[in-house]
């Protein structure tokens, strides 16, 4: 049992292969209740996860589900099926392998429930759905092993929490179930192991040979990087030269919009017509599949992409990764670099292209961190309660349950080991009756107890609704984009509804690398026509806005201890020296606050290095304080390191603005009414099952009968401020969009030390911020004033039109 089974050993021998040491180690530990493999891409990681299953099934063939494989991507499940089928068929094993995802047909799914394959490949959501069926115990009867692939990616979101709760359920249904986790390089393997294992089982960790150190550098360019903005268009000639010098190049961008703009520019300069393509999450599925297939076939020389290619299939012959824009996070950079050269013993090759002068500093710091193998990452918090609420509802769909037994089961899941009984009871109460301070719905509870005290759905028909709402992935409200008159033709992709609302017929934007002209909105589809040779309006549809990690920010701040920077390009070093001469360089243990006048407005610039989301929140909090003080704030713009605020009157003394008590009070009271908090609430309320996921079809017919989650949020704050969901929202706001935890981190490291520098003119560091996009106007009295002015202007125009002289 601790070595290869005969037919597989024979297959390895025929191939002339030997087991990698980590594969042998995984096989030797096949009986461990849980084990985690940390290995770079390539190196037979997936096979290492499956070998114990294949050997067991060869030695003791038997019908029924033996191994469950869970991956974050549907495409990966399909790909693994292909890759695993090869050794199974060539070794002559009688093992049935099938995938089951959102794309699997209804009949196939039904058959799988009645007659499961030996190995089922699925996603966390499809697994949760299977567990919601009454016949779940039958489907999973006999299950021996579960393999969780790309667990590092799953653990970064609530999908990981949902999966761990599902595994806890599975372990209950199948005592003796063994868990295997496969992970890319992470900063804290022990924490990942604890997350994976059933509490308090031990979890063995296998560290595969990471291979040779990556070959990574900044791409030298003839043109200097610009002072602000993103996109890296200045580097196009050098990028094309690199594409020509390599077989296949992946060009990563941080946002979809930047990927589109870069791809468009690259295409215009592509005089030799190299086959290049674009791949990101807003493109239609058909488009993405086409690109993936061309890539596997080796038909592409370069793919401009976003995080959509961070995971997944072995993309053949990628021999260069180019990262455009600051990587923001060292761990993700290392994982991206790993996409190049999947051959085990060759170094991965990567080039960084900073998009502006400040990013040169950030890239420099990131390169240092990669060389020092100093990975960043935030410790995983306790398992979120909104996901727990959904899990309780899913459990109820499968049949009646006892609260005590469910609590015991849940506290065996990674992340939930420290869950208090009080919190569990609050979640159960929320699922049952909404958990409101005011008793209501006694007749209409969602869950109620039977005579023996077991909890069950009051109305079994509710199961359908719960299943439809399952999952933790938040879709933003997007609209499909189609060519006009392309009756039922393929969509080009999707844009955010808010972006579509800003479009006027005739406006042009980029989609899938082509310029399209907005024609109109038809039902829930954006209709466009092709447009050639016109400069597009920027496509501002969503792309994840990553915040620069705490650790990388700290490294950048350490660079500022110096007074000379021989390793940085000349213009960048000169810029730092100029900032040092005119003002200060920001320091980790002090806050730099600059004040200056520019174009008749008072400007304030705070360098807090807390990451983009927290800096945005800081902007909201500071402008609110300034409004209270009558300084007339007009707007602000935030980056990963600074927030620049403009106002009618200058800030004379920043210390009271930055007083921790005020900031925290602002978070608790005023910020709580802000749109970002409402978005946070909406996400949690959807996951917890208070509101339904909005499907596009529903929105169409919903109209005035559906009301926004904002109304529920405001109502709860007014009448039930201690409600469970508001607690969850506050907890969520410490991370994510609001990221107040980073503000706390900043307060802790600076401990009230503020350097206020009043300058006769704009400072070198603040100058590029004036050109940043993403300005936030300050709403409040200001909005009423704007509205009054707008109303007057529009009305007077109307009067003029109606009374022509």
């Amino acid at each position: 049992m601790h070595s290869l089974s005969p037919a597989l050993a024979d297959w390895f021998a025929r191939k002339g292969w030997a087991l990698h040491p980590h594969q042998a180690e995984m096989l030797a530990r096949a009986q461990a209740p849980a084990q985690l493999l940390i290995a770079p891409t390539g190196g037979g990681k997936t096979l290492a996860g499956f070998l114990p299953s294949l050997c067991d099934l060869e030695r003791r063939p038997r019908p029924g589900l033996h191994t469950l494989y869970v991956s974050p991507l549907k495409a990966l499940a399909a790909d693994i099926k292909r890759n695993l089928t090869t050794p199974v068929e060539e070794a002559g094993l009688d093992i049935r392998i099938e995938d089951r995802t959102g794309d699997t047909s209804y009949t196939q799914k039904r058959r799988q429930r009645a007659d499961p394959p030996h190995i089922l490949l699925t996603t966390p959501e499809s697994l949760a759905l299977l567990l919601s069926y009454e016949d779940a115990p039958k489907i999973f009867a006999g299950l021996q092993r579960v393999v969780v692939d790309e667990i590092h990616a799953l653990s970064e979101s609530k999908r990981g929490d949902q999966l761990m709760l599902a595994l806890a359920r599975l372990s209950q249904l199948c005592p003796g179930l063994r868990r295997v986790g496969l992970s890319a390089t992470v900063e804290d393997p022990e924490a990942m192991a604890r997350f994976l294992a059933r509490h308090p089982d031990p979890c063995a960790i296998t560290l595969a040979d990471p291979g040779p150190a990556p070959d990574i550098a900044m791409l030298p360019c003839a043109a200097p990087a610009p002072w602000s903005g993103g996109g890296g268009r200045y580097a196009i000639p050098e990028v094309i030269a690199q594409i020509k010098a390599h077989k296949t190049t992946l060009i990563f961008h941080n946002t979809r919009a930047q990927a589109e703009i870069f791809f468009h520019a690259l295409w215009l300069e592509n005089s030799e017509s190299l086959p290049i393509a674009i791949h990101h999450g807003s493109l239609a599925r058909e488009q993405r599949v086409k690109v993936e297939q061309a890539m596997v076939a080796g038909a592409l020389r370069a793919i401009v992409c976003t995080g959509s290619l961070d995971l997944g299939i072995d993309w053949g012959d990628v021999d260069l990764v180019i990262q455009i824009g600051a990587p923001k996070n060292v761990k993700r950079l290392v994982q991206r670099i790993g996409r190049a050269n999947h051959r085990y013993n060759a170094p991965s090759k990567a080039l960084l292209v900073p998009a502006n002068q400040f990013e040169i500093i950030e890239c420099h710091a990131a390169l240092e961190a990669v060389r020092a193998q100093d990975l960043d990452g935030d410790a995983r918090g306790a398992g979120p309660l909104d996901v727990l609420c959904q899990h309780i509802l899913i459990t109820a769909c499968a049949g009646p349950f006892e609260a005590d037994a469910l609590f015991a089961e849940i506290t065996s899941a990674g992340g939930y080991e420290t869950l208090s009984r009080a919190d569990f009871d609050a979640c159960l109460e929320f699922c049952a009756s909404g958990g409101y301070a005011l008793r209501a719905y006694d007749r209409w509870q969602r869950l109620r107890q039977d005579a023996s005290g077991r909890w069950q759905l009051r109305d079994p028909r509710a199961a359908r609704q719960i299943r439809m709402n399952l999952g933790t992935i938040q879709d933003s409200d997007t609209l499909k984009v189609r060519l006009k008159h392309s009756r039922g033709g393929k969509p080009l992709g999707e844009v955010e509804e808010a972006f579509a609302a800003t479009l006027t017929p005739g406006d042009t934007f980029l989609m899938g690398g082509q310029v399209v002209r907005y024609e109109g909105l038809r039902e829930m589809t954006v209709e466009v026509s092709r447009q050639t040779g016109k400069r597009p309006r920027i496509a501002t549809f969503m792309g994840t806005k990553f915040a620069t990690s705490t650790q990388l920010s700290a490294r950048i701040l350490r660079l500022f201890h110096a007074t000379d920077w021989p390793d940085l390009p000349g213009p960048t070093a000169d810029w730092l020296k100029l900032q040092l001469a005119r003002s200060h360089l920001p320091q980790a243990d002090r806050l730099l606050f600059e004040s200056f006048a520019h174009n008749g407005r008072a400007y304030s610039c705070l360098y807090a290095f807390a990451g983009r989301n927290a800096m945005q929140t800081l902007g909201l909090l500071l402008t609110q304080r300034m409004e209270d003080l009558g300084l007339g704030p007009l707007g602000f713009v935030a980056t990963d390191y600074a927030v620049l605020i403009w106002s009618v009157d200058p800030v004379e003394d920043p210390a009271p603005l930055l007083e921790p008590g005020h900031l925290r009070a602002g978070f608790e009271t005023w910020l709580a009414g802000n749109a970002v908090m409402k978005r946070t609430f909406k996400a949690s309320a959807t996951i917890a099952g208070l509101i339904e996921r909005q499907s596009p079809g529903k929105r169409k017919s919903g109209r005035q009968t559906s009301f926004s989650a904002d109304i529920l949020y405001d109502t709860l704050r007014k009448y039930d401020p201690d409600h469970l969901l508001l607690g969850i929202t506050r907890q969520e706001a410490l991370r994510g969009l609001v990221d107040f935890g980073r503000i706390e981190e900043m307060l802790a490291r600076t401990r009230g030390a503020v350097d206020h520098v009043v300058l006769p003119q704009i400072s070198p560091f603040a100058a590029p911020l004036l050109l940043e996009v993403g300005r936030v106007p300050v709403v409040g009295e200001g909005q009423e004033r704007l509205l009054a002015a707008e109303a007057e202007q529009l009305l007077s125009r109307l009067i003029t039109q109606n009374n022509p002289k």
Partner: protein
Amino acid sequence: MNAYRFGFGSTAFEARGSGALYWPQERALILSDLHLGKAERRARRYGQVLPPYGDHDVLARLEQELQDTDAKTVISLGDGFDDDEAAKNLSPEIGKDLSRLMGARDWIWITGNHDPSAPPFGGRCLSELALSGITLRHMAKPGAVGEISGHYHPKARLALGGAHISRPCFLIDRQRVILPAFGTYTGGLDCRQTPLADLMEPAALAVLTGQSPRALPMPRAKRLRQA
């Protein structure tokens, strides 16, 4: 004062920031689409357990309006209750509150598509009401003259200095007034959409609710330029 005054028919009206319409000549407060009992109906019909405070909130805002205007007559323009059963199932506390507000006032329930029957709270129940040459009904009739209605929950969306705002609004032209929904758990229909866009005259105004109600030309969908 938190209201926009305008002339309609032969008299003056006040479109209030709350979404209520006040008719000084008749000392009448007109409200539409209260949707009382919406949370109860959602729980009953769909197993969704919304915060049970929507009705409290509607009545609290209504009481404030009654205090501010000292109205002697209240006209609910239909959909006062989310359905007939919701009217029967209102919590006793809400029922008591509503009866207290109704008190000695002349209270008229105009029926709507959600609440076609007379609610068990007294007051008069009518399918429409003609008063001083003006017809009050739930749903606007195309071609009607001098009509005040509700039903559509109109909202207006505006781009302002880079941000979008969307607020419930009154729609007003020479022949009709359409009220926004007064209910707490209500959404809205963008006034660019049909049938609102077709019902209203080209010169119609939208009065946005909020702290200081403001009149704007009613936002219209942009027409496609002919290529």
